[in-house]
Each structure stands twice: as structure tokens, then as C-alpha cells.
């Protein structure tokens, strides 16, 4: 079964590469496309796990990941970006190089930590957990380092990708939980959309730094 492991490793590794690409990209549409690629990699990884472990319920998870996150959410975000008219470059709080080094540090941390705490587990589980933790931390980093609200949403969604990867690696969570999580993410997207349009109505931009100014003004009052 070395090949089975290799393919799982490849797919999860490509998800990690996508996480780094999310951090690297400075165009909003490129970020959305990368996110879609990551979700498709996730669905392939989950489907592969389902095939290797003979667990048909994982195929449903894979289909949901593909449909919701590979197609629906990117398309919805694309439309939002078009409506908001923010196709130009998005800026990061720090420059790309620093972001990359932070990302590398977080990835190394995640791998070392998971390898330390799961010595007895099966190789699929350790591998999935380690890469998933790295993807989750990179998603957090993406949310912290971006100024634009849309790219922060993408960071949030990529955290969710990491969570699903961890869940399938660790012998799966029940399908009911899975479905409810998927739909809550979809609902979160609607909430985000409403917030986005409200923020923009108020400040004429989706740069979340303008929120800080409001807070400062309130504090002074």
C-alpha cells in the first residue's frame, strides 16, 4: 500500500502548497481561484481516503467539498467581488517575503508538534493531522495578514478545508456532523456577504482597517 500513502501525501501536500499560494497571491481573483483549487484537492484527498479505506460515506463528504467549496463558494465570492468592484490588487499588512517566512515557521511548528504528540497513530492519521494543522494555521495567518475582507473570508474557508482534512484523516466524523458543518459554512458565507455589503455601504471600501478608525472614534467619544 505504499502507493496509497503516496497519493494521499501528494494530495494533502498540494493543499499545503495551495495555502502558501493563497498567502503569496496579491490579486483577489487569483486568491479565489487558488481557493477553488485547494477545495478540489481536498475533495480528491477525501475521495481517495474513502476509496482506500472502503468508507463510502467519505464520498459524500468529497462530493460536498467539491460542490460547495470547489464551485458554489468561489463563484459566489467572484460575484461579490464583481459587485463590490474590487478587482484590483489587495494589500497585505506585511510584505510577501515576511508572510512566507511566517508561514514556513508555522508549518514547521505544526509538523513537529503533531509528530511529537501522535507517535503511535497510523501513518495516514499522523500525516493528515500534521498537514491539516499546518493548513489551519496558514488560514489564520491569511486572516491576520490581509486587509481586505474578501481575502479574510477566503482565509476562514481555507481553515475549514484544513478541518475537513483533519477529520477524514482521523477516522472520520459522523456524516450528520459533516453535513451540518458544511451547511453552517455556507450560511456563514451569506452572513459574510451581508456584512461585506454593509461595511462597504458605510465606508465605501472593504478594507477592515476603516473599522479600526470607527472604534477609535467611539473610544474617544
Amino acid at each position, binding site marked *: 500500500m*505504499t*502507493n496509497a*500513502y*503516496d*497519493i494521499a*501525501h*501528494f494530495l494533502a*501536500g*498540494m493543499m*499545503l*502548497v495551495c495555502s*502558501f499560494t493563497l498567502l*503569496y497571491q496579491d490579486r483577489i481573483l487569483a486568491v479565489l481561484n487558488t481557493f477553488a483549487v485547494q477545495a478540489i484537492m481536498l475533495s480528491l484527498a477525501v475521495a481517495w481516503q474513502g476509496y482506500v479505506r472502503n468508507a463510502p460515506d467519505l464520498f459524500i463528504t468529497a462530493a460536498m467539498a467539491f460542490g460547495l467549496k470547489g464551485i458554489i463558494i468561489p463563484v459566489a465570492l467572484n460575484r461579490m467581488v464583481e459587485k463590490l468592484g474590487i478587482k484590483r490588487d489587495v494589500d497585505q499588512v506585511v510584505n*510577501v*517575503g515576511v508572510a*512566507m517566512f511566517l*508561514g*514556513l515557521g508555522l*508549518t*514547521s511548528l505544526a*509538523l513537529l508538534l503533531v*509528530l511529537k504528540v501522535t507517535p503511535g497513530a497510523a*501513518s495516514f492519521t*499522523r*500525516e493528515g493531522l*500534521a*498537514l491539516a494543522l499546518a493548513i489551519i494555521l496558514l488560514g489564520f495567518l491569511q486572516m491576520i495578514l490581509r486587509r481586505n475582507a474578501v481575502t479574510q473570508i477566503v482565509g476562514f474557508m481555507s481553515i475549514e478545508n484544513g478541518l475537513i482534512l483533519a477529520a477524514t484523516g482521523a477516522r472520520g466524523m459522523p456524516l450528520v456532523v459533516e453535513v451540518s458543518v458544511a451547511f453552517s459554512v455556507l450560511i456563514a458565507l451569506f452572513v459574510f456577504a451581508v456584512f461585506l455589503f454593509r461595511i462597504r455601504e458605510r465606508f465605501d471600501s472593504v478594507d477592515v482597517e476603516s473599522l479600526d478608525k470607527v472604534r477609535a472614534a467611539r473610544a474617544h467619544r
Partner: protein
Amino acid sequence: MPATVQSFIAQGAQMFFVLAIAPAVTGITRKVKARLMRRRGPSIFQPYRDLLKLVRKESVLAPNATWFFRSAPYMIFAFTWVAAALVPTLASGLMFNWAADVVALVALIGAARALLALAAMDAGTAFGGIGSSREMMIASLAEPASLLVALTIAFAAGTTRLPEVAQFLISQPIEIRVSFALAFVALVIVAMAENARIPVDNPATHLELTMVHEAMVLEYSGRHLAMIEAAGHLKLTLYISLIICLFLPFGMAPFDGSAAAWAIGIGTYLAKLVLAAVALGVWEVSIAKMRVFRMSEFLGGAFIFAFLAILLEFLSREVQR
């Protein structure tokens, strides 16, 4: 015939083979580029004619050029040739196998580059200085990435010696290795930066905004320029051979193999070389030159890829143990 003599001859054969085909590799790339731009392009043997012409011409020196300026081209050529001859191309198990270390290769190339940058500043013109500073910036970004690629390969194969790495990779069953894919991308980016190929530098123009390599060699003429040009061709062949050796080593002959094995070794190597040259030409036509200030991001990408490669290699090794 004793084995040492045989391997000495094989090593020598490889050395002169690399030297002989290097200009043709550049020629093929130029021809492909020209054809894709709907020009006819010079013959693929034009680089040989250029070299011959340059050797016959008088070389003009700046009045304040020192001995270093005159001797640097020969040293650069020698360093690059030694490096190119060390990479196993046709066969493995050659005489100087013990020296064909990736780290040594990086050091040899680095020494050649340092000489070029120093010599460029020797004549005291502004262009030499700007070329040297840019070259050093690119080198400082590309070298860590190339060393990390070397470490990834060494981590997988257990050695940094190229012939042993190639032997190890040939003996392995074919697998999907994401770390090797990432290392491959990183090494290709590094190779483009080091050889002054298009996203980083365009050696075909003399435009001061973008010049890197050309700015450094502007002061050279005649046989000195011929040496520098030949070193450039050799360096391109060296990097292509390195990529072939690390990622596509199949078909390589052992030095004491039969004539048929050697024929297969030469055939596959030439085929891979031509393929790489054509791919390089297609790539160069299809993208645009980058701004100098974007270089750090581009080469930083190579560093990230190499680092991720080593992390993933480490992970899969730890997990599978």
C-alpha cells in the same frame, strides 16, 4: 584495460562531450524562440561560429583594466567547465565521482559568479557596477534555494554525491513524490535565474533598465568574450544536466557498461537535453520579463518550494517509519 584507466577515459569523454554540445543547446533554444516568433532564426550551429569569430578577433582592453580583468574569463570558464564535467550526464561511476557533490557544484558556480562580478567592476564603468550588484542580489536569493533543493535530494537519497543519487533514483520504483515535484519547480526557477533566462534577465537585449548579465560583460571583447560566452553555454548545459540527473536519470550507463549501454546513455541524454532546450525556448516566448524589483518574490517562491519540499520529505519519512 584496468578499471581506473577506463574510468579516466570515460570521465574525459564526458568532459569533452559536454564542452562540444553546450553551444548547440543554446543554439536550439534560440532557434525555437525564433521559429515561434515566426522568424527563421540562425542555424543551431551559429553559437560555434560566433565563438570562432570572437577567438580570431583582437581583444580590446580598457586602459585601466588590471591583470584580473584579463585572467578572469579563463578562470570563469575553467570553473564552469569543471562543474559541468562533474555532473554525471552519460554515465555514472566515473573517475571523479567522489568530487561530484552538489554542494561542491554550488560552490564552483558561486566562485565563477564572484569572479565575474569582480571583473565587471574592474574596468570602472557604471554598467559593470550595476550588473554586479544585480547579479549578487539574484545570487543571494537563488543560492539558498538551490542548496535547499540539494538537501532535499540528499535527505531522500542519503548522499549529496550526484552519481550515487542518480543510481539511487534509478533503482527506486516509480512513485509519486510531491517533495521531488516541488524541488523540481524550485530548481527550474533557480536555473532560470542563474542562466539569465527571460523572466529574470534577457541576454538578447542591451537595455540598461533590465540588463544583468550583459551589463557585466559589456567591457569584454575578442577571445575574452569568447571564454565568457562559452562559459555561459556550459552553465546552461550544466543546469539542464543537473535537472536531468536529479529528476530524470533513467537510461544512464555505468562507465564499464557495454557499448550498447553507452549508446543508450548518449541517446537518452541527448534526447532529454534537446527536449529541455525546446521547452526552455517555448517558455521564454510565452512569458514576459519581470521587473528587477519583483525578482525577490519570484526567487522567494523558489525558496518556499524548496523548503516545503524538505518539510514534506521529512514528514513522509517520519510518518512511515
